[in-house]
């Protein structure tokens, strides 16, 4: 005697957030049942294991059927198959597109290609995120990337509108897409101490200040003209660097980074350069974050004192971003 078929369909689709999370996390039905049993849900309503199993299977099926819709969240709102209250729809989308910081840290800056996808099992082993969940997250990145790739307009806004994500999540996705597109180097040992959120913050800074009029998303389109003027600064700022004397090296580092930004290939090393040329020296000098702040603020402002310095605007734009990136990245 066995249950051959067992379904439960509500007019309003019934979804348990806890089971949804288990499904997203890539648990199998049996594992999910175990987790739920340990969670004490059995005590409610005098449920037995069979009841729990049947319920979990139902929900998993529902989620699988919904998954197709979640791939283009706009459809979820006007599809007819499932009657889901709007707040639930938001929850479904938000959770489906949520990701593990540890996982995303691994793929950040990598090409979202099939090759990377093949390596997901390694990442899964390393981050102890289930392979199923890794695949979902990776596919999400790829899907978002593909959609916004061809769109014009502000990146974050595009993502928010097409995937109906919250502002926070849309910003994170913008960062991921930005990194993937520019292939920033993030995997070096020296950068390992940085979390995804550090990078996301920097990406946000870069996107809003360095992309063309903050309208276009890609660094290729970074305001090259502006940065081309930077090398010409070099000579003039020499005086100013000498003024600051002891900070010569640091200063030179920053200027060099700026100069490199004109070259797409070198842009990839932006973060590693920041760490190597600035953060590490400071750290070895045991600067506190406050010292750092003080230095950078004065350093930026001192450029204004130079009468000969003609590129105040560009300088501010450059230093503003570098300053906030360094603040964010300057920790252990």
């Amino acid at each position, binding site marked *: 005697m066995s249950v051959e078929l067992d379904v439960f369909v509500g*007019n309003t689709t019934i979804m348990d957030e806890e089971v949804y999370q288990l499904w997203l996390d890539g648990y199998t039905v049996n594992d999910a049942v175990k987790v739920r049993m340990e969670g004490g849900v059995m005590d409610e309503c005098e*449920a037995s294991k069979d*009841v729990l199993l049947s319920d979990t299977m139902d929900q998993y099926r529902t989620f699988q059927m919904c998954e197709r819709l979640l791939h283009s969240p706009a459809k979820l*709102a006007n599809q007819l*198959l499932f009657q889901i209250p709007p707040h639930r*729809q938001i929850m479904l989308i938000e959770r489906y597109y949520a990701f593990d910081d540890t996982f995303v840290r691994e793929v950040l800056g990598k090409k979202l290609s099939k090759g990377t996808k093949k390596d997901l099992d390694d990442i899964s082993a390393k981050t102890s995120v289930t392979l199923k969940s890794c695949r979902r997250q990776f596919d999400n990145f790829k899907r978002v990337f593909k959609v916004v790739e061809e769109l014009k307009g502000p990146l974050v806004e595009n993502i928010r509108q097409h995937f109906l994500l919250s502002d926070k999540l849309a910003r994170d996705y913008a960062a991921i897409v930005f990194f993937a597109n520019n292939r920033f180097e993030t995997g070096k040992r020296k950068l390992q101490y940085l979390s995804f959120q550090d990078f996301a913050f920097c990406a946000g800074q870069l996107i809003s200040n360095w992309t063309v009029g903050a309208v276009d998303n890609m660094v290729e389109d970074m305001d090259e003209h502006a940065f081309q003027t930077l090398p010409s600064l070099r000579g003039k700022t020499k005086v100013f660097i000498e003024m600051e004397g002891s900070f010569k090296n640091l200063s030179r580092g920053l200027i060099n980074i700026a100069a490199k930004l004109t070259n797409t290939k070198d842009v990839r090393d932006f973060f590693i350069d920041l760490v190597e040329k600035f953060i590490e020296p400071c750290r070895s000098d045991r600067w506190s974050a406050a010292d750092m702040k003080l230095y950078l603020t004065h350093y930026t402002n001192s450029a204004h004192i130079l009468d000969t310095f003609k590129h105040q605007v560009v300088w501010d734009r450059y230093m503003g971003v570098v300053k906030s990136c360094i603040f964010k990245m300057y920790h252990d």
Partner: protein
Amino acid sequence: MPGKLKAKIVAGRHLPVMDRASDLTDAFVEVKFGNTTFKTDVCPKSLNPQWNSEWFKFEVDDEDLQDEPLQITVLDHDTYSANDAIGKVYIDIDPLLYSEAASVISGWFPIYDTIHGIRGEINVIVKVELFNDLNRFRQSSCGVKFFCTTCIPQCYRATLVHGFVEELVVNEDPEYQWIDRIRTPRASNEARQRLISLMSGELQRKIGLKVLEMGGNAVVGYLQCFDLEGESGLVVRAIGTACTLDKLSSGSAPNTNTHMHPNTAPASNACNSPSKDGKEPVFVEDLPSSSGPPTPFRALPTSSSPPPFSPSKPCSRQSSSSDTDLSLTPKTEEPHSVRCRPGIFLCPSSPILSTDTLSLPGSGSVGCGRGSNPRATTSAPLSSIQSDSALLRKSVSFTEDLLLAASGMGSGGSAGKEAGPLRTLLRQQTQTALEQREFPFFTLTSFPPGFLLHVGGVVSARSVKLLDRIHNPDEPETRDAWWEEIRQEIKSHARALGCHAVVGYSESTSICEEVCILSASGTAAILNPRYMREGCLDIGCTDHRFEEPSPPNCGFCHIPYDELNMPFPAQLTYCYHCRRQKVPDVLFTTIDLPSEAAVAGKGCLIQARLCRLKKKAQGEANATAISNLLPFMEYELHTQLMNKLKLRSMNALFGLHIQISVGENMLLGLASATGVYLTALPAPGGIQIAGKTPGDLSSEHISSIQKRINDTIAVNKELYQINPPELAEEGVGSPIPEPRHRSRLFRSHSESSDELSELDLSHGKKDAFVLEIDDTDAVEDIHSLLIDAPPPTGFYSCNTENMPGISNWTSGVQMFTSVRVLRLSNANLTNQGLNKIFTDLCENLLKSFYFKLRSMIPCCLCHLNFTVAVPEEELIQVTVTAVAMTYDKEQTQEKTAEKPVNKGSLEAEEQLQFPLELCADSSSSNIQTASKISGVGESTNMSPRAASVDYGSFADRCSTWLELLRLKAHTIRRGSVKTSRRTQSLAHSVSSLERCSPLQEGRSRSLRSSRSFGGSSVTVVKMTPLSFLPGTRIIKYLGIINMFFIRETTSLREEGGVSGFLHSFIAEVFAMVRAHVAALGGNAVVSYSMKECVFMENPNKNQAQCLINVSGDAVICISETDQESSASTANTGQTGGSETDGAT
């Protein structure tokens, strides 16, 4: 040529990719009605095509309009090969055929393919221009409203309940035709879907004709079923209750009949025109279709009702005069009735038998002017006849001769004002009419207060038949004869119970190979004749004096049969409420708990489950084996029910539904009902265990079982809060000698022959509540009795419309369908083992529901409808549809006091006639008793029944207040309709604007996204198997939803196995129902039911097929609390939908 159907194809969205190369689709649409087909242009390379077609116009007969669905096929254009079908949409245009329902069907419909399921959506607009048809001999019945709801629909008022209508049509099943061998599964499925759609249309039209003949304008409690008889054909049959309904529109004050239908308005005229009354009845024997000039009396053209048995046939009449008159036609001799009796039939007049008044908007108000003040006509006191009629009512049920004599006597023995004698006559004639109506059956399960006088008990009949090929589909005589036979049996059972009517009537079949079990059941009852004739409500006041004043909250429990001449052994006591009449100790019924009934505590679902193995056999032998098993099954089910009822310390069952399903090697029986403690009935005794014998059962064992039982009873009493008011014993009458276990279940079985056998289900001499343990089986039985786990805290369950004891619903509603199929292992199973498996299956299902719905606590599962089937040899399938509703726990503590249960109060406003009338009649006589018993007093909410002693002033106050409210609501509604139209057109312009602007433009995109999640762009459609939605008022019925779908797959594994397949199919069915309702402009489906869910699988071939039939009433409902805002939101919701639709 009385109709023009117009359809416009607007757009599609989410279409599937049909061209792999381009990942796009070149879609176009074929629109077909009857034999006419139109095509749209091809919209190349788009998954969201915009066709914006012209209006396709079909000029068709209204007969076709009723029968045919509009068929929309979406195809992918292929230059070189045949065009690929993407899917279809069938639109039933019936709702557009009566003026009060929807005026346009417009919205997104899922494109459905029987192999692939839903594949995208299509936006369609459909309109109908109906021309006036004065042809009397037409075959259409446009304008007759259909309701699945088994009570008087909320925004209507029944002026007249005509009675039973039935019809069946048969055809060959396309699946079994030779051509099926060579066509694709898709073609075969579509042929079947289309045929069934056609057949249900035809059936509905034919029933409509019968209703028109009877003078009614609506069918309530419409129940349509399919019998898939395999080789021998396909039967679609339907039953219903014909009524004359008046819409309670906003303008009409509830207590004056301003909005009376012209057909019924002249009621009082009839009484005042003695020349045309029933004194000189004209007996007409089956006249041929009359084509002569309209005469006051005319027999119905029999040719217009094809089936040989139509109960309505003899009592219909046409008249062209606006005057009203009585039609008295004799009963024609029926092949099966033994007696040929001259009958007097009273039926409503129909000025002109045409639909003009119904199909033309606005004409409904013609009758307004005739509104008469009821109190003017109702003042004729006729107390002198009171005793006569009381006597009459009793004797009537038994002897027809006496009845006829009595009706003569009635006309003579009247006194009083001019209308007096006639009214008396009318009344008795109605009685007679009811009596002599071929089948005095009512498919309704709940009634306006005062309608139901007494309830006798459940009557049921079953018969086992061998199916044979239906040779001539146009004359389905055998099937008709079978049902006729069963109905006759039901009727005679009811008569034996001293009742003249059967309420809560339903029919069902179970088919396995060539054996078919036909079942019918209902509740024998005596009805208040007031409602059987015209103008009843005007003269209700005086009329009441004919009746013995039986208090509403216990009257229906009083026995209708003669105490000395009881149809079965019963234990009678005096009613615990009024102490005047006898009541039985237990009451079983198939109806809902009357809203006025006094109950103690809460109700609960009680189920009896049974499996019986049977040998495999063929043909006659098989039928014999089954019919031999049936009585034993019924007996056992009944015993189980009785024991479980006692175990819960309750004394009445409502909504009893017994289903017996036949499989190749077993029979399954499932009886479901809602148990309740009626305070009018005596308290149930406990259950005693008597150990009779076997040495291995020690007395300790017995006493331990006894203890368990007693404990369970105590626990249940606590659980269901059964604390009946303690009554002094003095007044209780002496029980009838020979106290016995009584059964109110009348049942008989018959084979293919006409052999009828009756079985008394009583336990012989055994005392009612003693269970004997004489073998291990008995022990098992008792264990299984105790196995039923009570629902977890916070849950209640019932299978009726109202949950006894809970009335304060909050707005949480979750309708669901669940299907479970169990495969039995090959091991040789015993009956006991099977029973256990079956019981566990049902119990586990319930447990699953409780668990899944735990977030809704406190909540109640209502209308739990279990259906069992044996689809294959070793499979048991259980399908459940129910609704979970949340309620306010705080208020329930004081619940019983507020008698007008949910619907009662809900409808009180709409059907104000009833309560007002009732309070007028009964206020003087039983207001004290009522308040004493139920503790209502002048309590709480303005329950008109309890609170108003001063009838006049109250009614005035009430009416003006209501009038005001209605007027307000009306204007609001009208206003909002206008706005909705405007916004709609606006939305369209927006959409077209957007369409021409390229997607890249940031502006249009931001415009689109700005509304991204503002609200759900799809109209939320609530569904419920009940006739109401808590916290809302139904303001409009948009028409019946009756849909049939087939889904098949040849890639079962890929679709997630059988569960995945069925899960998505059921979800798709829900989606299609919702889409149709939304397109009609509705926001809810009430009285929803899944009639059929036939599932077949062949896992080896990776195939499965499923057929689902659903039905319900599409409605617009608005929140009760704030009418204005919700009315407008309902509309904005819709426009919001169209706006986004346009934008996509």
